[in-house]
């Protein structure tokens, strides 16, 4: 009996620690990542058992040798991650980050190539143009959702395609942007390129700092402002937010505009980056493919629990694994496709394990809530009486 008591006490203490909100989601994320890594390792083991261990080690550590690139490649997915995560806080699933991202790219490219602006202002104008492009592509699904209750998942998926094909068409039809024999756009003028951070052998530029600042601003907006309060209230319980007189229509549209703007910024940051060769820059290839960075943003957002600060770290993690992966394929003879599969497995298993663990977490929370309630010797109303739920079994 004594033993029993002690163990139940221990359990209670353990569950108290686990119950603290930040700790809970942090451990959940770590567990998710471990699970993802495990599955990734299994895929590598199947593909080439001999190299699997060293290969896997390189995958985990390779990124550390190229930190500049880790930050560089983290920037776009950080932005699309913020886009998805922000909309998710209001209960909207912005699966259209790819389209918004592509539109942002195009707007940024257009201003970069077609407008002549003074040095120092040009690249800023390009970034703003990218943001506006993304906002536009977020606004339309938001408007349809708010006014006609059209499911934003469906519209934004369709808008991924519409956006991608439109941009491909605009680019190929524009003689001063498109270089037909290279099937890509030309280089941006240096005035439109983002200032590099000067890390050797890396494209990392000022946008990563901007992205992190934006993430922190979003965190403040969500947690300190009335707008964030309304947004989260709507995301948690749209009936209660309606009852409280919040303007659901306006907030839905605004959220989608902001989410679109974030993804559009991601596109702008990606396309405006200078490359290692002086004078050259990133280019857009109109090859009828939806931008993968948009979808990676979903995984990044999930892995970061839609928390802007968490998303900074999850974007870095995903980017880190991707950098490590590229090294594995060049050093250990894995086919690049296999490495892509492994990366995808790691990222998506992590993200899905995240969902699963949050579902498990909710269950645990519910249980501990029941116990906590009893602990406090408080009364449960008869309709949500948890014990009655049990009786339903």
């Amino acid at each position: 009996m004594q033993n029993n008591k002690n163990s139940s006490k221990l359990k209670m203490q353990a569950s108290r620690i686990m119950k603290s909100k930040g700790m809970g989601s942090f451990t959940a994320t770590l567990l998710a990542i471990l699970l993802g890594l495990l599955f990734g390792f299994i895929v590598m083991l199947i593909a080439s058992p001999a190299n699997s261990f060293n290969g896997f080690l390189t995958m985990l550590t390779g990124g550390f040798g190229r930190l500049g690139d880790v930050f560089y490649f983290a920037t776009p997915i950080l932005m699309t991650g913020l886009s998805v995560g922000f909309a998710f806080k209001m209960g909207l699933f912005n699966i259209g980050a790819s389209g918004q991202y592509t539109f942002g790219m195009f707007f940024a490219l257009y201003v970069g190539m077609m407008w002549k602006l003074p040095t120092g202002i040009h690249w800023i104008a390009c970034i703003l143009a990218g943001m506006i492009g993304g906002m536009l592509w977020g606004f339309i699904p938001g408007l349809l959702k708010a006014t006609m209750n059209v499911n934003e998942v469906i519209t934004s998926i369709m808008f991924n395609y519409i956006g991608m094909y439109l941009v491909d068409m605009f680019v190929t039809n524009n003689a001063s942007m498109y270089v037909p024999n290279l099937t890509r756009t030309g280089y941006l003028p240096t005035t439109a390129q983002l200032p590099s951070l000067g890390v050797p052998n890396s494209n990392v530029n000022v946008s990563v700092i901007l992205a992190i600042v934006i993430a922190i601003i979003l965190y403040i907006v969500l947690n300190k402002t009335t707008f964030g309060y309304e947004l989260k209230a709507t995301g948690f319980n749209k009936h209660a937010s309606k009852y409280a007189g919040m303007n659901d229509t306006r907030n839905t549209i605004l959220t989608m505009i902001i989410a679109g703007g974030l993804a559009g910024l991601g596109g702008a940051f990606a396309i405006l980056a200078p490359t290692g060769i002086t004078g050259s820059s990133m280019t857009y290839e109109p090859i009828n493919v939806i931008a993968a960075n948009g979808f990676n943003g979903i995984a990044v957002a999930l892995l970061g629990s839609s928390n802007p600060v968490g998303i900074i770290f999850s974007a870095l993690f995903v980017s880190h694994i991707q950098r490590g992966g590229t090294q594995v394929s060049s050093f250990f003879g894995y086919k690049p496709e296999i490495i892509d599969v492994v990366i995808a497995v790691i990222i998506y298993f992590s993200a899905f394990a995240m969902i699963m663990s949050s579902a498990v977490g909710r269950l645990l929370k519910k249980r501990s809530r029941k116990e906590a309630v009893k602990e406090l010797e408080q009364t449960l109303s008869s309709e949500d009486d948890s014990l009655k739920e049990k009786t339903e079994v």
Partner: protein
Amino acid sequence: MDNYVIEMLHITKEFAGFKANDDITLQLKKGEIHALLGENGAGKSTLMSVLFGLYQAEKGKILKNGEEVTINNPNDANRLGIGMVHQHFKLVEIFTVLENIILGVEPNAMGVLQKKDARKKVIELSKQYGLQVDPDAIIENISVGMQQRVEILKMLYRNNEILIFDEPTAVLTPQEIDELIEIMRGFAKEGKSILFITHKLNEIMSVADRCTVLRKGKYMGTVEIKDTTKEELSRMMVGRDVSFKVQKDEPNIGEVLLSVKNITMPSKINKKNAVKDVSFDVKAGEIVCLAGIEGNGQSEVISAITGLERVKEGTVTLAGKDITKLNIREKTKTGLSHIPEDRHKHGLVLDYSLEENMVLQRYWQPRFQHNGFIKKKEMRDYTEGLIKQYDIRSGHGPTSSARGMSGGNQQKAIIARELDKEHELLIAVQPTRGLDVGAIEFIHKQLVATRDAGKGVLLMSFELDEVMNISDRILVMYEGEIVGELNPKDTTVQELGLYMSGAKRSRKEKGHAK
């Protein structure tokens, strides 16, 4: 000892160190109606779950006819002849009455369902006990009262001898309650034993033979009903004296505050109108109650006034201002406070903390925000004030999650929020649903105090005691119309029941009644 069919001796059940049941003894005699009384959270449900095999007690034993038995799951309970009518019925909505009754014990020959014998048995049982049902009706089409009869027949079909009724009267009209009580008496006469869980003292006094009282998981004693009084029972249950009669003086009625004119609202479930051309007034300083059986249009009237649904036809005027088409925020500003029917759906953001919920209607006011930034300190101080004033209990004060609070305290929080905000009219929809007597007493006092402060109160309630005790005027709704306007002083619960069931009507719902 021999005449007890079921004995639960010294039952202790712990949850993570907290004793939900602490040394509880319950002895049920053959052929008696035994009430189990206690506030919400007193441990009634836990005790019944132990009896039903859903939980295993850490200590104590269960005897059936003097022999110790182990009950590990509901099937064991069933085999021992224990049956239960849950408060929320466990019926398959799209099945017929007969299919529901035989569910789980389907008579079959080689896997082929044999309904014929089952039907005969069900019809016999329903005749024998006066439980009228149509075996072929679909559950979702029959009344709540009939659904309950189906649940009872389920127990009888399984030859259960020990029948547990979990708050069976909560959903019934007074007439249906009388019928149920007759049926229960019939069972007792047949030698069946009944456990009757409730917190309504009147029903215990009228039907039970003995009563076991629990308080905060502890056994308070078992009393013979004929030797006790309502007051004594409530003292045992709550631990202090509770006043049942709400203390209130004559209303000091002022100007018309709320004027509803010719409101028509569509139904959500069919093409008919849920509210048909309804008009009424609420004046300053009075409590007007919308009474009626659930689903007769009261909720829709409330939604029309509060703005949760768009008004199809008609106008709503509050304090001289036409608010029919205003959005909810504007209505709130005009002086409307609203304790919503569903506190989890509308009243609270459960994932928010208590303090975040306390400013749900006011976060936009300059007091709580500056340039769009929420003043956290002001929010916390404000919440702490309300916690003190309204005695809202929660684990971590203002930062407790609303989800983790008990139903009674959640409701207190909503009431505190709605009463503290500037308002002329308070709309309270089922403000005491599912709460125990202590909390009910508190809320009733608040409603009366609001009235005495010269505000108008529109109350919607299914609890007839509440309707009769609290209101200054009763409007009875039946099938979307107001069929009666009654003064609680000149009417009886029985008469009210007749109006509610549509058997009687006095008020033609035409034009504008006073």
